[in-house]
């Protein structure tokens, strides 16, 4: 482990008790029996397998049965580093009859995908978790924080519950004109899908404005949907609300059908994942890029009026890297910025450590706080600080607020958290 820390101690529940009577004095001694201290014969195979069967019978849950218990997934699980978790542990719980659908463990997986990377049996938690959660949600079981986000998403079509008609409010501060298709429906090369945090979160809006200036400067022909945009809802899907995802998808596909464009570009790796991997399974195929993939081949056109003289480390978003295989585009962009010295964290690329925001984790901070010793984002920020970097660069809209909070709570305020577009913007248009 590159950074110190401690794991959440396991909760030991003593289920068995034994009373020993002295043959000399006749006194009785209460001996609490740990699970592995056997005072009488017990049946080792007496567990019900029905809970495991319940999960494996769900569409998407099948692969949980393939687990042969090697446990390779546990040390790479980001949640296990700060708690007591991991696919093998969940599998074992289900094997011994624990109802995972009613267990807090169901909601702690961030679907980061590092377990699947190392699993020799391809037990796919990225399918299992959403399937099991969907079954729980259908029964009305979910953390209240998550229910609130689902309801907001259904009502306002964004996870923040913000006014849908103010989706493009950020364009006012961009300093360059931003075309909105509803008022100018001519064909366009790039449809820029802004997604929730760049539309509404103050720090996200700053990144969106930086993107607008850069796209304008390097000559991208682009436009946004404005108030017609609805979230793609990929994290709501992985958190268990597939029905909500499908309802959103119907509306999104109908809206996209009104306009002519060559490709969709989004700053949100979760939305990117939805369009690239999930939409095609419903027969909706779009040419889709993450914004780093759009800008990397164009960055030679950038005119640098300044530089960013700083040591920068980069956090790979799980849904851009591990889930969709893109590690180089963000690094190419960073390398192109004059003055930037890129230093890698020990956990990077395929083994990047999750920020904790995926799979609904973005909305479960309170729920998870009792169950981990520190936030995943806090642990990651410590790793970033350990490199000696001045700046932690990110390219997922979830991360700026997560890591900025974590930098403060871990005493690493000196570490600035900036989106890659903010760094490019600072070097192209120094103020």
């Amino acid at each position, binding site marked *: 482990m590159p950074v110190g820390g401690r794991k959440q101690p396991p909760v030991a529940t003593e289920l068995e008790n034994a009373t020993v009577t002295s043959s000399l004095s006749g006194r009785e001694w209460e001996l609490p029996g740990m699970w592995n201290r056997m005072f009488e014969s017990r049946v080792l195979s007496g567990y019900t397998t029905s809970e495991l069967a319940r999960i494996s019978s769900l569409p998407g849950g099948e692969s949980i049965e393939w687990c042969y218990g090697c446990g390779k997934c546990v040390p790479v699980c980001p949640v296990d580093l700060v708690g007591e978790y991991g696919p093998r542990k969940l599998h074992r719980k289900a094997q011994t009859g624990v109802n995972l659908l009613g267990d807090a463990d169901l909601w702690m997986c961030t679907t980061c995908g590092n377990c699947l990377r190392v699993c020799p049996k391809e037990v796919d938690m990225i399918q299992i978790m959403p399937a099991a959660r969907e079954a729980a949600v*259908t029964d009305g079981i979910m953390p209240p924080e998550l229910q609130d986000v689902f309801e907001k998403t259904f*009502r306002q079509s964004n996870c923040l519950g913000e006014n849908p*008609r103010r989706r493009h409010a950020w364009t006012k501060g961009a300093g360059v004109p931003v075309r909105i298709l509803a008022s100018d429906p001519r064909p366009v090369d790039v449809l820029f899908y802004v997604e929730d945090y760049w539309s509404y979160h103050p720090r996200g809006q700053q990144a969106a404005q930086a993107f607008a200036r850069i796209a304008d400067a390097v000559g991208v022909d682009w436009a946004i949907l404005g108030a017609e945009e609805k979230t793609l809802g990929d994290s709501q899907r992985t958190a268990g609300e597939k029905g909500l995802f499908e309802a959103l998808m119907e509306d999104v596909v109908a809206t996209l059908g009104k306009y002519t464009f060559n490709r969709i570009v989004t700053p949100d790796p979760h939305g990117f994942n939805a369009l690239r991997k999930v939409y095609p399974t419903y027969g909706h195929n779009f040419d889709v890029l993450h914004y780093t993939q759009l800008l990397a081949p164009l960055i030679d056109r950038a005119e640098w009026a300044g530089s960013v003289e700083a040591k920068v480390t980069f956090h790979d978003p799980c849904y851009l890297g591990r889930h969709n295989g893109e590690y180089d585009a963000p690094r190419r962009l960073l390398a192109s910025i004059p003055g930037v010295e890129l230093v890698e964290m020990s956990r990077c690329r395929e083994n990047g450590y999750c920020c904790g925001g995926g799979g609904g984790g973005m909305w479960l901070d309170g729920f998870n706080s009792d169950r981990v010793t520190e936030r995943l984002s806090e642990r990651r920020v410590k790793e970033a600080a350990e490199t000696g970097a001045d700046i932690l660069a990110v390219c997922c809209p979830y991360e700026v607020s997560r890591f900025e909070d974590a930098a403060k709570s871990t005493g690493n305020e000196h570490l600035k958290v900036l989106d890659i577009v903010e760094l490019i913007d600072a070097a192209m248009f120094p103020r």
Partner: protein
Amino acid sequence: MIAMRIVVPVKQVPDLVEELELNSEGSDIDREFVKFVANEWDEQALEEALLIKEAVGAQVSVVAFDEPDVDQTLYTALARGADDAVKLTGAGDGWLSTAERSRLLAQWLSGQSYDMVITGVQASDDLDGQLAGTLGGLLGVPHASVVVGVEPGSGSVTVTQELAGGTVVRTEIATPCVLGMQTARQAPRYAPISRIRQAMSAGGLESVEAPGDATGPADGVELLRLYPPEKAGRAEMISGDAPAVAERIVEILASKGLVKL
């Protein structure tokens, strides 16, 4: 056998994440681009009805006027567990006053069998709080408002009401009756979107022409003017170091007569 029938009237109110604007006459909010959602107290009423249904069995019917975005509210109610949903059409486009609303509902209800009518104690748009009482009066049945719990008995229900000053009162009321719900015994349940969509594709809404006659005795209320709250005073930001700030706070408190120097 269905033990009883509970009718839950629900109302659409503007979604408060929207920025509300007034129409040019200043007589109403501009309803054209505003999204409407279910009144939160009516959702409490539905939850209590569903809890009763789960405990002792009941047919839960939801009824609403054909107001903006009402289909989503009614299908959500069906997805939560309501047995049927009725949409009363043709009662006009604009805002219905509580008096008009209760007259129309009473006419419709008089042709229905019901043991309880449970509705929200008030609605967030007018905070009028008169629907349950007026309905009870028009129907000639007892009513209770600010209800926080309903226990059905035979031929009667025991209701718990929250009164002023932290007083709680339990009353036995003969059925049929009308109840205005403050809060249900648990938070309104989640309706999985897949279930709402199933309800939508099943299309189980019953559209019924609203009874035509909303006229009746005057409400006693005439809308004179609708306007955004006028700004009253402003916060003062106190700057300076701690002693200076403390001094200013003491000065303010003294000027309000809250401390004696």
